[in-house]
């Protein structure tokens, strides 16, 4: 058996032993490469597992000391070493809720504009511009929020809110107290701007995936654009939209720097949205490097563990929903 190979246009013959040697080497390379890539894929799992284990180990002393009371205790006192996560959890939930209340309808409206109304030529540039909002680093939102947005709210918006709801029962306590500028509401509004691009781009993609036949049939029956979106596009894209909303929620829950700048870092639960508060991530960012004592550090890591578990559940649900719609389209 003789092998012929071409080297630089010249035919070269090689003998049999070198052929089997070469083949053996190639086979070995194949096996090595396959296992290296497999190892790298496993490493991704190891990273996630490592995050879980490291956080659980770090949080252990605090969880041992406080037990489940950690979740429902409002006090956060580094001096007496009594720690409870209720105030940060409350702040995280409320700021994310405000963000979603604003970003979901606005994001869906923009997606509707981009898929139904916008001239073809402008669709890409406007879509990219909205997505650039997601590219701005969160610390920029923070510095902008602190120096520009919060003072604006303090001078113009918050006094008006306080005055408007002064005599409305229930709402008056939501908008009570002096206008600080910084606080839960400001943090929620900035989060809304930050998650808007995520919700918009995913909604736009799932709106785009609605079969044109369905839309055209509805138009053919004489539906208005709004009716087509409301009764054809939205029901069809529902699962994907919910997935996108959950993805945005995951971002809002874990967002750190922007919130740290504007929330005011007060470990208390106030009825008023204008009062300063704190969130899980803001507490960790503010206090971790200054935490003295193992129990303090451990309590902060326990906060991180809670945040991770919450966002893990939300993001897993989001991915599950998006997978479902992908399967339907694909």
């Amino acid at each position, binding site marked *: 058996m003789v092998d012929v190979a071409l080297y630089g246009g010249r035919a070269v013959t090689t003998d049999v032993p070198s052929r089997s040697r070469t083949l053996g080497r190639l086979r070995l390379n194949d096996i090595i490469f396959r296992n290296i890539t497999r190892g790298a894929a496993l490493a991704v799992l190891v990273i996630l597992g490592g995050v879980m284990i490291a956080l659980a180990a770090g949080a252990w002393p605090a969880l041992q000391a406080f037990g489940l009371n950690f979740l429902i205790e409002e006090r956060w006192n580094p001096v007496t070493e009594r720690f409870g996560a209720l105030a940060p959890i409350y702040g995280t939930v409320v700021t994310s809720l405000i963000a979603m209340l604003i970003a979901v309808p606005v994001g869906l409206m923009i997606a509707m504009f981009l898929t139904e109304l916008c001239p073809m030529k402008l669709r890409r540039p406007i879509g990219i511009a909205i997505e650039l909002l997601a590219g701005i*680093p969160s610390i920029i939102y923070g510095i902008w929020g602190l120096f520009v947005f919060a003072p604006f709210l303090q001078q113009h918006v918050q006094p008006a809110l306080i005055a408007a709801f002064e005599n409305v029962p229930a709402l008056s306590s939501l908008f009570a107290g002096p206008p600080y500028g910084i606080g839960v509401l400001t943090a929620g509004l900035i989060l809304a701007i930050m998650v808007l691009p995520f919700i918009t781009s995913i909604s736009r993609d799932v709106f785009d995936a609605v079969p044109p036949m369905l839309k055209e049939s509805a138009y053919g029956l004489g539906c208005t654009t709004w009716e087509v979106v409301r009764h054809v596009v939205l029901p069809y894209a529902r699962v994907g939209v919910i997935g996108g909303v959950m*993805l945005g929620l995951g971002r809002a829950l874990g967002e750190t720097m922007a919130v740290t700048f504007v929330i005011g870092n007060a470990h208390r639960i106030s009825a008023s949205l204008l009062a300063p508060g704190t969130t899980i991530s803001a507490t960790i960012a503010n206090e*971790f490097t200054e935490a003295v004592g193992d129990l303090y550090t451990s309590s902060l890591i326990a906060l991180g563990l809670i945040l991770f578990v919450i966002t893990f559940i939300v993001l897993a649900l989001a991915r599950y929903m998006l997978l479902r719609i992908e399967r339907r389209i694909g």
Partner: protein
Amino acid sequence: MVPGSTKLYAARRRRNTISMALSLAATAFGLGWLVLILGVLLYEGFGGLSLKVFTEMTPPPGADGGLLNPILGSLMLTALAVAIGTPLGMLAGTYMAEYGRHDRLSTVVRFINDILLSAPSIVIGLFVYEIMVAPMGHFSGWAGAVALAVIVVPVVVRTTEDMLRLVPDTLREAAASIGVPRSLMITRIGYRAAKAGIITGVLLAIARISGETAPLLFTSLNNQFDSFNLNAPIASLPVVIFQFALSPYADWQKLAWTGALIITFTVLALSIVARALAASGKQS
């Protein structure tokens, strides 16, 4: 005509006009924030932009100075993070697209990777603190780079897998039919065909980490001096902005705005280049 139907038509048309106006307003609202934020950044930061910013060290309060050490620190951390995260991410993406396209491991890794992609970055910081800073006993540039690398990996995994999947199977079959071993087929043909896409992924990852602050707060910390020792705390642009912006000194705040301007436009430029590259890759 049915009585009342003109009324119904008018109502439907009115509802349509209102909702279309709202969607237009929502788009203007979304774009407005982008313009507003970039405008403020330019207004506040542009005045401070001078050669000094890139050539002098961070000053003590009240003195003159620049941002040289945080800029260099950020560049070092970013380069290291990309150097650690890119190979790992590329290899994992390769496994998922080439070897185990439909196996259980790939499905699980894809799911977990997507979660890591949007996991809160501050949690990554805590993780690296636990595995590196606490055992070593001190903050270090290495820890910061590892924290950023953990953020790079899922971005690169995702784009590598997506881009390799776009490579037509006929190319693979052609290679297989002339007896090219699989590993060579992937490295010589798969990677070459997916090159633009993979570079896009790396650029997006760089854009993502160059503004990250939270994972650096308790890994690489900060350093007032021009130290570039990776085994010690090291300054980085985002953390310096954080510290300077929250300080009571006007000249520190001004430097923070300038730093913010530099970061934002770097990040935006990176993501626009990445997009352009991805678009040109799709056309060819």
